[in-house]
Every structure is written in C-alpha cells, then in structure tokens.
C-alpha cells in the first residue's frame, strides 16, 4: 500500500512525514519522529500510557492513525515544558513523588493537562474519574491525585510557590492536602 504524506503540527513545530495507512499515531511519534516519550502499554486503548492531545482533545495515540493527522495539532509530553521551565504539572509530579517507575507519567501528565484545561479547579473525585483511563501500577494513585490538585492550585495562583525554576527546593505548603476542594 502506498505511503501517505502528512503535514501536521507537533508541539508547535511544522512536521512532515510519510507513513503507512495502517500505522498508528503512536508508532509515527515513536518510530518516525523520535518522540518516544509517549509509551505503549497496551496498544488497545486500555492503559493511557500513549495519551496525547490532538486539536485540544485527549486521545490514545495507539487508537489514532498517523495518516489522520494532516492539518491537525498534536501535543505530546515532549512539548509540555517551556524550554527549561517545567509545566506546573511536571513540577508538582516531582515534588509530590507522583511517579515511581515513571512509565505512566507522560500519559498522566497529558491527561491531567486536558483535565485542567476544561476544569481549572477539579475536586478529588473529578480528578479520579478524569484519570481513570490512565493505569498506574506503582503508586496507588494517591500521590498523583495530590500532584494534580496542587498543580491546579499553582496554575490558579502562580505567584505563591514560585514555579518557574526547574525543580526548586521543598514541597509546597499544603503538599499534604487531601486534594479535596469545593466544587
């Protein structure tokens, strides 16, 4: 079968590639574009390790085709930080020890980003349900939920705990909060 030529935007950069018609977006990202941050945990849409954002929508890259990306916008974990400045989600995941092995982390970060884009102040329950499509086998999710909650607070009031530097110092105040918030 003839390869498909695709022009798309990945993490803000214009990208062109050709791929086989049946090749998944995940395979294109990992094997053709060298973006191995997105992981394959299942290849069947069940684990969320491949979560990326396409045109603002959270998707499993293993369930989309590379050929579908023409003219669209793809965001992956590699584009989350702004240069040397980590995204508050990244900072909070580190500060809250929300990763152990870390293989689920790229997917959780992208799913959390999509959540916070549509709900800036999620409750614990909203976080838990929004992230229910992302499997983590290491953490028991406790520290992930806390990290997302802390990142939401940070994004709402960025002045307070000085995100911006790579990974400054100590756990932010309220780091042991339950993650519960009003509505």
């Amino acid at each position, binding site marked *: 079968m003839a390869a498909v030529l695709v022009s798309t935007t990945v993490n803000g950069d214009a990208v062109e590639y050709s791929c086989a018609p049946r090749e998944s977006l995940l395979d294109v990202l990992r094997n053709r574009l060298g*973006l191995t941050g997105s992981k394959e945990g299942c290849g069947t849409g069940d684990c969320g390790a491949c979560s990326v954002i396409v045109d603002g929508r959270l998707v499993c890259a293993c369930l989309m085709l590379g050929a579908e990306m023409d003219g669209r916008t793809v965001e992956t974990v590699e584009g989350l930080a702004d240069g040397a400045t980590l995204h508050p989600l990244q900072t909070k995941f580190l500060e809250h020890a929300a990763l152990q092995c870390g*293989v689920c982390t790229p997917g959780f970060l992208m799913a959390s980003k999509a959540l916070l884009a549509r709900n800036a102040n999620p409750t614990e329950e909203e976080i*838990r349900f929004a992230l229910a499509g992302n499997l983590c086998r290491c953490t028991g999710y406790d520290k992930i939920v806390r990290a997302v909650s802390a990142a939401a607070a940070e994004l709402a009031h960025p002045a307070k705990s000085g995100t911006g530097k790579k990974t400054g110092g100590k756990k932010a105040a309220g780091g042991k909060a339950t993650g519960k918030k009003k509505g």
Partner: protein
Amino acid sequence: MAFDTQYTNQEFKVVGKRVLRPDGIDKVTGRARYGADMNAPGQLVGRILRSPHAHAKIRAIDTSKAEKLKGVKAVVTAADLPDLTRGDMGMYDTLENCMARGRALYDGHAVAAVAAIDADIARKALKLIKVDYEILPHVTDVDEAMKPGAPIVQPRIRTVGVNPAPTKPSNISQVSEFGHGDLDAGFAEADVIVEKSYKTEQTHQGYIEPHACLASVGPDGQAELWVTTQGPYMQRNTCAALLGLEVAKLRVTASEIGGGFGGKTHVWMEPVALALSRKANRPVKLVLTREEVFRGTGPTCSTSMDIKIGARRDGTITAAQAVLRYQDGAFPNIWGMLGAMTAWACYDLKNVKATAYDVLVNRPKVAAYRAPSAPMAAFGVESTMDLVAAEIGMDPVELRIKNAAKEGTRASYGPTYGPIGIGPTLEAAKNHPHMKAPLGANQGRGMACGFWFNFGGQTCVDLNIGQDGTVNLAVGTVDVGGARASLSMIAAEELGIPYEKVKCIVADTASLGHNDTTEGSRGTFSSGMATVFAARDAVRVLRERAAKTWDIPVDRVEWRDGKAHAFGDEHGNLAPLSLEELAAKAARTGGPIAGHNEIVADGAGVSFATHICDIEVDPETGKSRILRYTVIQDAGKAIHPDYVEGQFQGAAAQGIGWALNEEYIYGADGRLQNPGFLDYRIAVCSDLPMLDTQILEIPNPNHPYGIRGVGETSIVPPLAAIANAMSNAAGVRMTHTPMSPPRVLKAIREAHGA
C-alpha cells in the same frame, strides 16, 4: 553481622529528607529511555509465534515460506537454541520456556520467532509459519492437577519431599513442611477450632511497560543487550549460558524500568532476541505486546488451601495448621514452599505446621510477584483469624496482639526473631483514628497483618570522586522506584556533603562487578549497605591524602562534615581540608580518589504490616467500594519517606486489585480468555480512595542505618483485610478471590436463602 547501636537511632543530616529524585526531570519530560525506547543502526523488528493450545506435541514446524518472504532476515525455532545446559534442570526449564522444544506446555508458549525489516513483514511472516500440533489433554486448575489420572504436565517430574520416593510421574513437583510442636496436643487443648478452605485466582504483576529488549550479537561473539529487567547480571549469566557466549563479552544494560514487581526478575524472550540477532547478523528489537505479556510472562500462582486454628477462650492460639496447594505453571518451582514459610510468620505459636504442595499445570511459568506467595497464605490465615475472634467474642486486633511474634519468638519457618515490628504495627492500628471512624449502612471495617522476609545478597558499588569534589556512585541494582535518590542520600550522608553533589547511576554489567537481581526488596537495603562501606572506603583515602598534605600521621585526621580535620595538640591549628580541596589536589597526592565495596549483604531484616480497610458493599449488585484504607508498616529506617510511602501505597493498591477484580480466566479449552487490560482489570484511579500510611521505624540491627526492605510487605494484608471488612459490611465470608461483584452477590443471595 550486627552493628553497634551507635549506627542505629543515629542523627542524620540527609537521610530521611524528602529530596527530589535525580531521574525525575527525564521522567516528566519524556526523555527517560525505557526498554522499547532504544534503537540501533540497521535494527530489525522481532516477533514471536505462540502456541494457541494449552498442551500439545509439536510434530513439525515448517518455516520455509516465512524465510522466503521478502524482508525477513531470520527465523528461529528451538533448533537455533541447542541445549547447552548440561543437566542444569532450572536452566533447561528457562530455555524451554523461551522456546518450546517439541511440546507446547501452555497457551502462549513461544514456538518460533522472526526478525524482519519492519513490523508488518514480521507479522506476515508469523502467519506463514506452519506448526503441526498434536493436541494433548490439559489441566489448568490446581486441585484438578493433583487428582490421580490428571494429564501429566512434565513426565520427568517425581514428587520431591515424600517418603518413599515415588517412581511414577506426578504434577506435584514438591511437598514441603514447616513448623514445630505437637499439633494434636495443641488442638486437644483448644476451646474452639475453626477450619476453612480458600481459593485465590491467578494474578499478573501488571507492570505498565511490556517486556522489551534490543539485542546485538556480532560474528566475533561479542554481544550487547539493552533490556528492561530487574536483573541485568541475571540476564547476562542466563543468556550467555543459553547461547554459549562468554559472560564477559555479553554486555547487558538495564534500561529505565517501567515496573517489574518480580515479573522482570526472570529471562523471558531475551535469548530469542539474541538468537535472532546472531542468525540475522543485525541488531534485533523485540517488544512484547500486552497480550503476550499476559499469556507468556510472569503471573503469580493460583492457590487452594485449608486453614485450621485452635484457640482457648482467652485468645491463646493452641494450634495452627495450613495445607497449601500452589500451582507453579508448567515448570517446577518453590512458590508453595515460600507460601508455607510465610503463612504463620506473624505469630508466636507453640504448635504449628504448614504443608505446601507445588503443583504443575498448563499455564505460564509462574514468576515472582511482590512478596511472592505470601498474600495467598495470608488471605487464608488472616481470614481464619477473624473467624476465631468472632467465635470467642474477642476483638480481632486484640486476638492478634495476644499472639503476635516478638523478639525471641521462634518463627514457624525456623529462625528466631530479632527485634521485629508486628506488635508495634498492631498497637499502632489499635490506636489509629481510622479504627474509631463511624461507619454507615452496608459498610464494614476489617484489618489484617502481613509478613515478608526481605533479601540481601551479592552487591557491589563503586564511588568515584571527580576533580571538583562531586561524586559518581555506580550501583548494580536496578532503580525500580526511586533508589537512586535514596542511595545518593546515603553517600552524601557518609561523605558529609550535600545530596546534590552526588550523581548515582545504574552501571552496565561490563562496568561493575556482579550484583544479584533487584528482588526481595533488596535494592536500597543491600546497595545502601555497600554504599555506606564504599563511602567509608573513600573517606579512608581522603584522610590519607589530607595526612599526606599536612605531613602528619593519618590517625591524627578525622572526617567530619565533608572535611578532613587534623586533631591533637600539635595539629590543632591546621585549617580543615574540604572534599573539593582534596579532590582538586588528587593528582599530586596519589591519583584518583575512589571507594569500593563488594559484599554479600546479609540480614535484610523481616518486615511486618497491618492494614485497616473500610468497605461498602451494595447488597443489590455485590459491587464494593473501598471507603478508607490505612497502611501501617515497619520500614526499619525510612531513607526517603516519600518513596517509602509510595511503596506502601503501590503495594496496597495491587493487593486491593487482587482482592476485588483481577484474575486469569481460562476457558475449557485451556486458553486464557482475558489477556488484556480491558478484561483483566487492575485498580484504576476512580476505584481507590487516598491510601493513608504510617511508617514505623524499628531499626534493623544488621544494617548500619537500620534499613529494612520496604517494597513488598504491604501487598500481603489487603486480600484478608478486604475479606474481613466485607464480612462485617455484608455478613458474608468470602473465601475465593477475586471478591468480584458476581461472587459477592452470589454469596449474599446464598446467605439470605434467595
């Protein structure tokens, strides 16, 4: 080996702090390289063909069509992996598990493999391989496999551990027995005797990263293997033996590991990747699919067991007996034996016995899974403990406190305990606010205890000081959950320098001496111990260099706060020399400054946990929801509390999934019916509440910092804690995991005579 008490309960400057991990940035930016993230020039894609039958004779394999397909560079079968094991049956089993040899022993057993220029061609090539199977009768249930007349899985097996030695083959590979005292006398003394049988279904470790490797074998016999594994040295030794390579010429590099939990302590498909590479004379990347992970690698045992406890009305247990039947998959192992060793380890018992049957079935070769074998036995024992408590009208925590093992107790599996934490975790549970929280309708609370041995083993560490005084620490235990941070902290503590000055790496097998596999919670314990000694070795060198610089005797130099200090009346006025200063002058004082340690780290220190669980059960559907969960565990000394908590929480979550949902479902045809995360349902974020933790620190006298392994124990209590909570919530005693909604609903209906 015991350390002076000055090394326990000591004041720490770095250890015990919540520092950021050194591999953190790479892992939140997508830069970290896991098993499937490495590439080599000219690499091929490997794929494996697996048996669709539970048990079959392989009459012939025709690979000719696949070999002719354009783009296929190698096809291998057992013929390409000749038997070089020279009578080592364990090694032979590994070889046969990697690639079937004339017979397929389970659904998913590898029978052939290809390497092709892309995944599409590799997939097509697999379809062109014709395997001529003669289907044989199979058995997948542990109790069925023990019956006379059951299909025999391994005709070579004669049961070990029975007298007289049997002459006929059996699926029971081994019978083991532990305990002491007089059971009959003990049961005769009892006021009440409770007896119950239990079953647990097979579960998988469920690491999110599938097995993956990149293998490269050159025509000169030099080889490299990049692989996601808990045991790079184990991989090296096993693969070298199976392929006839020289150990020193096979360099194994452990990638970042996306979870292992014991499932990556074994060799699975790596020898196949190496064989493909050798035949194709090109690098081969072999990544398993999720389905292959479930069908072909690593689950833990399914079990069946009978537990019997006799007790007096005052709560004293007079006798305890366990009969355990564990299936090891298609290859003999000691998982049942481990279950028997752990079954009664929490208690101080006069008359106790545990008998284990290790049983073969047509399922995948069982691998270690976090505190392997302990959760199932604890499910039976801890559930029965609650039944005893109810029978004599005693609080379940009090019953356990009354019988808890303590320092000086002779464990049911043999040794006499040193200082241990079971009593303190129970006292902490008793006093925990969780115990007093109110419960609503259809809600219940349960608790249970757990035990794990923890391992030490062979360890080797290099510590090198750079010219600017920063420190490289090279370790050989894989970092499965933040160990590089903990080990850097230990090095910083010993050297008296800031944590940020230490960079810890996991070395490849050519760069550091042998290290045992990271299993049995040994990583931070044993590499931590070796790091302490390597750092002290470096401090010795630093003191010598300072003495040389000052031209004074070395015994007049002490190391404090990252500096050499001269002491004694005649030297008191010499200004201290810092690590940086000594490092900068190293070239003129004797060359590079380093510390090394090679050790067999003994005395890992047993650990105990007590869990409390609140659950709500919907009587209409049998669906349950965990409302609140508390983990209390002894860590010896928590080097990095965040990661200790994380281990507790992760282990508890795995136990909760095991208790409520996870199971291998085999059809009558012996095929696995749910090899995917959709139907094999691990706990997701919305299934769980916050998991509270309480770290107790009862120092391990065998470690300079008092460390115990922490990674495994907390997977042990959840099965019974949940069963006990469910019994209090819904009035049904569940004896079969997973306690999934259909099973619970059935139990509720039966209990209410509906």
